């Protein structure tokens, strides 16, 4: 039950401020009072921004859009954790009831050399789009498709493909990884399409190209620390990385496919 009498929180917000990509950034502390535990984390940032505007200061820039955990726009490091302390939860779905009165909350942008800061908490995640451009699709033009039921897909394959397809592309896996690796993101798409009959014709080419692009963007390698899985708001499992590795080895040694994207 939402109880009306919950105690309001008084918080110190320590947030990264940086005017632009080429400017130096710094942490700034702000005091916030009267925060309802039922507020979402982003609503708390809204209140902070209204307070800053009241004082004639520039508000904190942060990416957000759907505010229901599906678009992948939002995402910040909260006390050192990507998307904060809750399991399988985006920043917008995190609620202030997870914090105690008097807490100091440290908020930073995603940290990765492949994700330059644009302003305050906003980073440039376009490398993820480019990984998709390298092969995260089935080459089928509009109008070419046969009947949807002409290829049965075993239910467990479809469910497992859906587990990978659920990735929201937020970049938390990169931010959580000490190597800033994008392996979980890349593997989610490779794994989805490798398990579906529609993905078979380009299966080898896809994995080689997506991995080549991932490397070219400056993401690090995977050293199996599992932080990505812990941070992933969509519950994408590192078993997809295992499948990515299998797919990569198979494509490298057992197929004639060559990456068309220059290797790093």
């Amino acid at each position, binding site marked *: *039950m*939402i109880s009306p009498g919950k105690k309001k929180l008084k918080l110190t917000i320590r947030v990264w401020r940086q*005017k*632009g990509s080429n400017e130096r950034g710094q942490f700034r502390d702000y005091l916030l009072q009267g925060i*309802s535990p039922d*507020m979402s984390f*982003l*609503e708390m940032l*809204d209140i902070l921004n*209204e307070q800053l*505007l009241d004082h004639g*200061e*520039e*508000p904190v*820039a942060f990416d957000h*859009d*759907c*505010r*229901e*955990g*599906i*678009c*992948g726009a939002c995402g910040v490091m909260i006390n050192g954790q990507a998307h904060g302390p*809750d399991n399988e*939860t985006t920043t917008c*779905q995190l*609620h202030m*009831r997870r914090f105690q009165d008097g807490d100091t909350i440290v908020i930073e942008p995603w940290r990765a050399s492949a994700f330059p800061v*644009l*302003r305050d908490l*906003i980073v440039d995640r*376009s490398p*993820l*789009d480019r990984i*998709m*451009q*390298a092969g*995260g*699709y*089935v*080459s*089928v033009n*509009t*109008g070419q*498709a046969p009947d*949807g*039921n002409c*290829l049965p*897909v*075993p*239910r467990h394959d*479809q469910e497992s*493909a*859906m587990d990978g*397809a*659920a990735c929201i*592309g937020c970049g938390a896996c990169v931010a959580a990884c000490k190597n800033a690796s994008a392996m979980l993101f890349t593997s989610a798409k490779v794994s*989805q399409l490798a398990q579906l009959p*529609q*993905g078979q014709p380009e299966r080898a080419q896809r994995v080689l190209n997506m991995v080549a692009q991932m490397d070219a963007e400056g993401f690090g390698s995977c050293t199996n620390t599992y932080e990505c899985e812990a941070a992933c708001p969509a519950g994408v499992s590192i078993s997809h990385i295992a499948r990515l590795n299998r797919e990569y080895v198979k494509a490298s040694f057992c197929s004639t496919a060559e990456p068309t994207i220059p290797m790093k």
Partner: protein
Amino acid sequence: MNEAMNNILNSRVPDGPLSEKWQNCKNEMKLVAPNNKRKYDIIVVGTGLAGASAAASLAEMGYNVKAFCYQDSARRAHSIAAQGGINAAKNYPNDGDSVYRLFYDTIKGGDFRARESNVYRLAEVSNNIIDQCVAQGVPFAREYGGLLANRTFGGAQVSRTFYCRGQTGQQLLLGAYSGLMRQVAAGKVQMYSRHEMLDLVVVDGVARGIVCRNMVSGEIETYAAHAVLLCTGGYGNVFYLSTNAKGCNVTAAWRCYKRGAYFANPCYTQIHPTCIPVKGDYQSKLTLMSESLRNDGRVWVPKDVNDSRLPSQIPEDDRDYYLERRYPAFGNMVPRDVASRAAKERCDAGYGVGDSGKAVYLDFKRAIEEQGEQRIREKYGNLFHMYQKITDENPYHVPMRIYPAVHYTMGGLWVDYHLQSTVPGLYVLGEANFSDHGANRLGASALMQGLADGYFVVPYTIGHHLATANLKPVSTAHPQFAAVKEDVENRVRKLLSGKGDRTVQEFHRDLGEIMWNQCGMARSQVGLESAIEKIQELRDQFWNRVYVPGVGEELNQQLEQAGRLADFLEFGELMARDALERNESCGGHFREEYQTEEGEALRDDANYAHVAAWEYTGNDSTAVRHTEPLTYDTVKMTTRSYK
């Protein structure tokens, strides 16, 4: 006399019987030869289902596409948030579905206020959409035998909804986005993310380009093309609180309206019955719980007004399953407008539950008893998870509390059968146009329409325009581009000069309150008249007192929001005016003066069986109302009954 005043809305509906119209249209349209397509540039604004599917399809055909979105990636457009599913007339469950039935349900669901020919075409291409998405690797739910699964949605008595858990919109959008990314890699699409369209450039009466603001550098940029496709979604955020993403706005459509595109039926807004109720004055948005939940969830309130027991302590006999009681044929699966009004009726009568009394229960107890918690988890796991995150309650054990919220807008820019607006060369797709849902949209139809427009309609019709319009070469060096750019720069400068004492968000909340109270689920002449006055006052106040920090040449989110709100403050008035002029109740538009004794919507087919299309005349308060009569040659207009 103003030339546009004489403009008769020509819907260009092809001849022939309903079921042959689209084929006839395709047979007669002029084509652009394959090797000539590369000579044409097309601008696509917005990368949701309609925009991404159109951009990818046109690029595959050989056109040069420039695609724009305000998000940091095309994959984040708000189509992604659609949960429940997409309709198609496949009849895989063998339950008697057909193209005609899907067409009829959609026309009836829209309360006979949609264009018959467009809706029939929508139903016709629905099956191609499923095929296309499956071929892209969209992981639709399947039966154990490996074939596609279906579920039931509101307003239908067949199972025709395809779904991917509770993330159907996400998966369909990622399918279209992957096609788009493939074309970016092929060099056929230039992608401009973090770009916001701020105006349309019309040269010699034809749409030839746009003016954008680069949201990172702040630069005002111009782009020229042979045609412009507007796929910019709906205007639900005029209410401030809605289920739309925070960035959704009317700006692109509104700028086109001001350049000559008529705005049709702005008063038709959909209030979705199953959303998580409002809980505090800090609330920034509302969250939808998919309509698919009503397949297994039962809606009820206590029978006794003063019953303050916990829901688990209220026995069956003391519960009023009011949808099952009032509408036995459709039960919990009545269309959205009917379910929303029924919830409002119970809450207004004092039966509402929760702290605010503005909520009803959506109960899964029986479904869990019958099917087991695991099965329910498989079907709705992510929705239950989301509900628990927001409310801190476990819906497996406690019934959900839900209340209606603004969700979708059926109104939009007027388009003909080709999806062309009243500005030649400006095409409008998806939620941004008005065409297919009439006064109320059925569940699982928005995804269908967005993809139908983008994959299977505009790729044909745009060719006809390019082949017949005799377009002269136009580049951004044309003086009209400089003129429109200057308009935009002046506007940005004016916004930035706002150094008053109130924030954009404060004004947006005020506007939302006016719209929700007077132009929301129930409307009246008195309320609408006062709303128009209040909006005008608020608009004046906005320009005198708003505070917009910073400068234009930087990433400035307050400036972005201020620009969008300024347009909402103009648009809100048109919306109220449209609601005031429509003296009937139909679908999502409910005028208190026009209802049956049982409180059902009372249509006036003799006087209002038409589309209202508003023309901008240079002043925010004197738009001219044109009408396109709606004629039904195949179906008979009836009173909707779901009893």
